[in-house]
């Protein structure tokens, strides 16, 4: 069992005891512990069950590469699944639960899957659950989902805050080990702005644990000196707990800062997503140790050799009294020494190499530790944890030479550079025949817009695993990155490391080399997804050649650790099975993020009331106070209606309409788009952008205009006002002002740049209030200031003046068919004018109305609504608006398209009015008119569909508009409309102008 050692622990502060719980059991640890080290210190080396076979799993690693120790962290609304215990800093009150077990971690029913493992091979799902089809949904999937999978998704809203931060830097250094620090210093001293980020809570990486000595001082002191020097430089920012997550085009890098994880509930920011533009990115991301594939290598107690050293040195955690080291490298001997230095036993070092030698080997032998050359592990003994290993010859098939009891197995399979960031944006890799790993190819970096590489690797991330070479590489990388950006103060000094380089590692992809099916079927490659050597070999036998296909077939490397431990070993097994060299098989694609990042960080500030912008009119607060029901229109919020007391929405709408048509209503029309088009060629420009003639409009007059796309389809409409000879005010739809303004600018800037025209979107400058109804004029006249008589301000005219002391522009236009004035007022005074109108109109029962009353009243008059009667395929002629399409103009946008045969087809759908046979029945919006015939697919043949449909309180019946094939020829016909419940509603085709066809109501 693992336990806490009496002394030591570089990171822990024994004076600060922290309490935490695991699966409900209260445990204690120390300040500086990770959750993983604290669990091990408490003897908790079984931390979860595996994905597929529910095998007991323990902690394998001490860093971000950990595949097994995933826990559900926190409780209630702060519960988060799949958190890595190895990178979770312990804090007082931490609560964690293990995942993927039922009913308990110690006794798990799903473990029966392991007994069935020979029936659950690679591609098992694809092979087994094909037939019968129905069984997949109702039987197989639910069962699999119950037995496989990791942590449960949280069920409550996340109460924490997340945010973005944008930063720009010359040189971004990813990784704060000795290489990152050396690279940062070289770049910073050259004069570049430097941002260095380290995912861990400390700088220095493995250097102190591995006993590195630089410039004659031990690594911890050297690191402290570098950090102090860098911190003092104004051009440097060093950040801990911040991981470079992804590298993208144009030097864009995302960083994931875990700012508040140790302080849940109290931290002002939990995670911060940095969005960085870096001139150069230096990846000083270090290396990850490879596990070794032998039978039972997934048993709790089998760990990476480097992790064993980390737990002993950093956290004073003994992984067990007796540790067998199995190694293909000199580096494994460091672990043997560290274990022995901690006063623990190393029964044997099993070195796969036939003739291990060198200073580290000598040092181990000198300590009296037994070194067995050419040996490996045939099998790990023990079920819930390691109890011993069977030793065999690495070259053989696994005949057991000896059984060695132990509690821990430290595996040292060699080191692979962390190439993820280099690869995210296209950096290429080389296979190193000596070190048996892929390393970045410096000649094929990810390239930026200038064709130059924008990433540089530094230290062991470049390939060299000995400290001296890594430091030299890192300094050079930092210098080169700065120099590429024009910062150079000469070649920097390279710190000198003591000691000699390790000897070459052996390539051990299978242990023992000739392992038979029995052993291969228990030798795990991907611990998290339960992929074994035998699975990859089976995939190759079944014809899988592409590494990407094999990955998906076997699920190798597809778990949340993205194959950080399994990748190289899996490739090597595949390559061996295919008889192809490893570089030819290649690697799978490295994709961001490096390790999973929280969805909260991705969402940033955009949550709750900040999720999406809301646009408010200057009268918004009045509407809110009046209890308006809101309707989103674009990003605007407009009152849909103003229900009184217990009034239903429909009753409110009917009341608003009746009050307006019989007296006077008030509408906040501020959201209408308003664009000034000005200049000597303004009239010519509008003749080109509207379908109708605008150049003939007289100053002070208004004209309804249509805008079409170049394909002839109607996309916006509104009233155009000629303010002066060379200046127009173009009204657009509420949602359309930005689009129409951009449309005008695009045509001006790209096609008609010779026209002298300026445009300005003045939508937000003005509030706009429509006062509508037979009593509208008298209310305005009582306010005073302008002559609003029919003679002074006739229909479709504009007047400027003051109303109740406020400067306004009044347009006598109508979207309701009533006497109507739209009053434009500077936004800062819109509310004041609104209040004055309400007060003045009170005697007449002035009634504010919302968008629904607006819609009904325009439909009663047969006026179209962009977005209801149009859908991007409708031309003005379809809507009986041919009168607004000029026949005289030589050109306008859409003119040529309108001459295409498809747009002149008399059978096109055309706008008609509908009156249901049952006047009480309001047709559903979008209901289809059906002919009773079926088409060649056996579907009902449709003639058209309802575009607008309302109850008209004015006519005391339902009304609707529809687009119907050949509609104008069908006047008087009765059409069948299918309803959702299968019934048919009959409606008569009528003129879409239901009310006051002669316009007498507004002509007063």
């Amino acid at each position, binding site marked *: 069992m693992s336990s806490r050692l009496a002394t030591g622990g570089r990171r822990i502060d024994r004076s600060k005891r922290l309490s935490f719980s695991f699966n409900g059991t209260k445990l204690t640890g120390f300040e500086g512990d990770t959750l993983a080290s604290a669990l091990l210190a408490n003897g908790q080396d079984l931390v979860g069950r595996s994905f597929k076979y529910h095998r007991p799993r323990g902690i394998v690693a001490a860093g971000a590469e950990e595949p097994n120790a995933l826990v559900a962290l926190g409780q209630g609304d702060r519960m988060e699944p799949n958190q890595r215990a190895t990178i979770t800093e312990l804090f007082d009150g931490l609560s964690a639960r293990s995942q993927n077990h039922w009913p308990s971690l110690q006794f798990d029913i799903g473990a029966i899957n392991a007994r069935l493992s020979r029936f659950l091979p690679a591609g098992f799902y694809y092979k087994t659950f094909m037939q019968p089809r129905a069984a997949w949904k109702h039987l197989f999937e639910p069962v699999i989902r119950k037995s496989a999978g990791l942590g449960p998704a949280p069920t409550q809203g996340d109460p924490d805050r997340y945010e973005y931060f944008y930063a720009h830097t010359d040189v971004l250094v990813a990784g704060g080990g000795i290489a990152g620090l050396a690279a940062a210093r070289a770049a910073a001293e050259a004069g570049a702005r430097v941002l260095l980020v380290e995912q861990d809570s400390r700088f220095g990486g493995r250097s102190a644990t591995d006993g590195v000595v630089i410039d004659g001082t031990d690594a911890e002191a050297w690191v402290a000196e570098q950090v102090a020097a860098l911190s003092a430089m104004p051009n440097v920012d060093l950040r801990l707990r911040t991981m470079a997550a992804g590298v993208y085009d144009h030097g864009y890098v995302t960083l994931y800062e875990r700012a508040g994880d140790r302080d849940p509930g109290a931290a*002002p920011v939990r995670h911060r997503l940095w969005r960085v533009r870096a001139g150069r990115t230096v990846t000083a991301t270090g290396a990850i140790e490879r596990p070794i594939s032998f039978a039972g290598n997934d048993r709790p107690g089998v760990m990476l050799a480097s992790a064993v050293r980390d737990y002993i040195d950093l956290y004073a955690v003994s992984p067990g009294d007796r540790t067998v080291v199995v190694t293909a490298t000199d580096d494994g001997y460091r672990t043997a020494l560290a274990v022995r230095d901690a006063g623990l036993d190393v029964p044997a070092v099993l070195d796969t190499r036939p003739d291990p030698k060198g200073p580290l080997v000598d040092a181990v032998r000198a300590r009296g530790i037994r070194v067995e050359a050419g040996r490996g592990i045939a099998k790990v003994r023990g079920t819930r944890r390691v109890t011993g290993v069977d030793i065999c010859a690495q070259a053989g098939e696994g005949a057991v030479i000896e059984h060695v009891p132990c509690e821990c197995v430290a595996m040292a399979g060699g080191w692979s550079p962390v190439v993820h960031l280099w690869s995210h944006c296209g950096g290429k890799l080389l296979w190193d025949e000596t070190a048996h790993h892929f390393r970045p190819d410096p000649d094929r970096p990810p390239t930026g817009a200038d064709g130059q590489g924008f990433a540089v690797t530094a230290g062991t991330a470049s390939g060299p695993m000995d400290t001296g070479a890594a430091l030299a590489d890192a300094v050079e990388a930092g210098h080169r990155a700065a120099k590429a950006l024009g910062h150079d103060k000469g070649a920097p000094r390279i710190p000198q490391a003591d000691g000699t380089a390790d000897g070459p590692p052996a390539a051990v992809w299978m242990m023992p080399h000739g392992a038979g099916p029995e052993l291969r079927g228990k030798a795990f490659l991907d611990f998290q997804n339960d992929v074994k050597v035998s699975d990859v070999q089976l995939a190759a036998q079944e014809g899988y050649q592409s590494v990407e296909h094999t990955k998906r077939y076997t699920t190798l490397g597809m778990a949340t650790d993205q194959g950080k431990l399994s990748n190289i070993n899996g490739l090597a097994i595949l390559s061996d099975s295919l008889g192809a060299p490893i570089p030819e098989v290649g690697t799978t694609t490295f994709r961001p993020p490096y390790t999973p990042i929280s969805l909260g960080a991705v969402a940033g500030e955009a949550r709750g009331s900040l999720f999406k912008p*809301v646009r408010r*009119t200057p009268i918004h607060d009045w509407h809110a106070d009046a209890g308006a029901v809101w309707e989103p229109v674009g990003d605007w919020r407009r009152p849909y209606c103003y229900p009184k007391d217990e009034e239903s929405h429909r009753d409110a709408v009917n009341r608003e309409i009746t009050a307006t048509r019989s007296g006077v209503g008030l509408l906040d029309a501020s959201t209408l788009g308003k664009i000034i088009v000005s200049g000597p060629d303004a009239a010519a420009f509008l003749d080109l952008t509207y379908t109708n003639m605008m150049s003939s409009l007289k100053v002070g007059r208004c004209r309804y205009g249509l805008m079409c796309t170049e394909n002839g389809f109607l996309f916006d409409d509104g009233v155009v006002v000629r303010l002066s000879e060379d200046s127009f005010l173009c009204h657009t739809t509420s949602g359309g002002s930005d689009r129409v303004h951009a449309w005008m600018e695009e045509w001006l800037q790209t096609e008609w740049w010779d026209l002298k025209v300026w445009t*300005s979107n003045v*939508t937000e400058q003005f509030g706009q209030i429509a006062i509508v109804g037979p009593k509208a004029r008298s209310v305005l006249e009582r306010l005073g200031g302008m002559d609003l008589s029919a003679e002074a301000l006739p229909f479709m005219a504009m007047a400027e003046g003051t109303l109740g002391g406020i400067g306004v522009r009044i347009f006598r236009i109508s979207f309701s068919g009533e006497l109507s004035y739209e009053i434009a007022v500077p936004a800062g005074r819109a509310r004041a004018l609104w209040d004055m109108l309400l007060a003045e109109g009170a005697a007449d029962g002035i009634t504010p109305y919302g968008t629904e009353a607006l819609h009904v009243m325009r439909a009663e008059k047969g006026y179209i609504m962009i977005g209801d009667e149009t859908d991007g395929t409708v031309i003005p002629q379809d809507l009986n608006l041919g009168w607004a399409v000029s026949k005289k103009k030589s050109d306008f946008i859409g003119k040529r398209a309108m001459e295409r045969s498809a747009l002149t087809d008399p059978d096109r759908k055309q706008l008609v009015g509908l009156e249901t046979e049952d006047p009480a029945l309001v047709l559903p919006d979008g209901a289809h008119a059906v002919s009773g015939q079926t088409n060649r697919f056996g579907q009902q043949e449709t003639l058209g569909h309802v575009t607008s449909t309302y109850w008209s309180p004015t006519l005391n019946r339902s009304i609707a508009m529809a687009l119907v094939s050949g509609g104008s020829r069908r006047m008087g016909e009765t059409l069948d409309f299918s309803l959702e419940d299968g019934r048919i509603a009959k409606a008569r085709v009528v003129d879409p102008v239901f009310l006051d066809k002669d316009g007498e109501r507004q002509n007063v």
Partner: protein
Amino acid sequence: MSEAVTALAGATYEGAVTVADGGLTGMVQLRADLADAAVATAVKAATGADLPDRRRISAAKEQRLLWMSPDELLILTDHGAAPDLVKRLSTELTGQHALVLDLSDARSRIRLSGQGVREVLAKGAPVDLAPGRFEPGEVRRTRIGQIAAAFWLLSETEAEVICFRSVAPFLFDWLSTAARPGSLPGHFR
């Protein structure tokens, strides 16, 4: 006669940085070819200020001229002074192809003050806000979060932001959230 009101009605938030309604502001838009010497002459005559260089601000008396694009200026002045400024500019630009508009009510101005103004802005704007890279006298048209905005520094501890009036309450809330105590990353030094 009623007084004009701002969209933020004098709101203030005190956090790591103070976020406050900047109050009524005269804002006059000029659209004209800023490379045209005659335009520069007219603007100088009307305002007393030279045209600002690209992404910069020039100033004279109570007026600040913000470069918005190669053919657009936004001139800030007292709210009551805007109509006269429109008249002066229009007069000076007579006969030239230019558009002058009083847009004092179209946008809102928000003031930020405190040590962290650069960092509050950098939470939402993809702009290099580091000292030396963005200084008083410069203006950026960009976005803050999801809101189109422009901003400039008045000093190391004061900034001003303008955005369209309809989204001013949203941006005010956004900036207040970004400015809450303890939330600044401490990146700029």
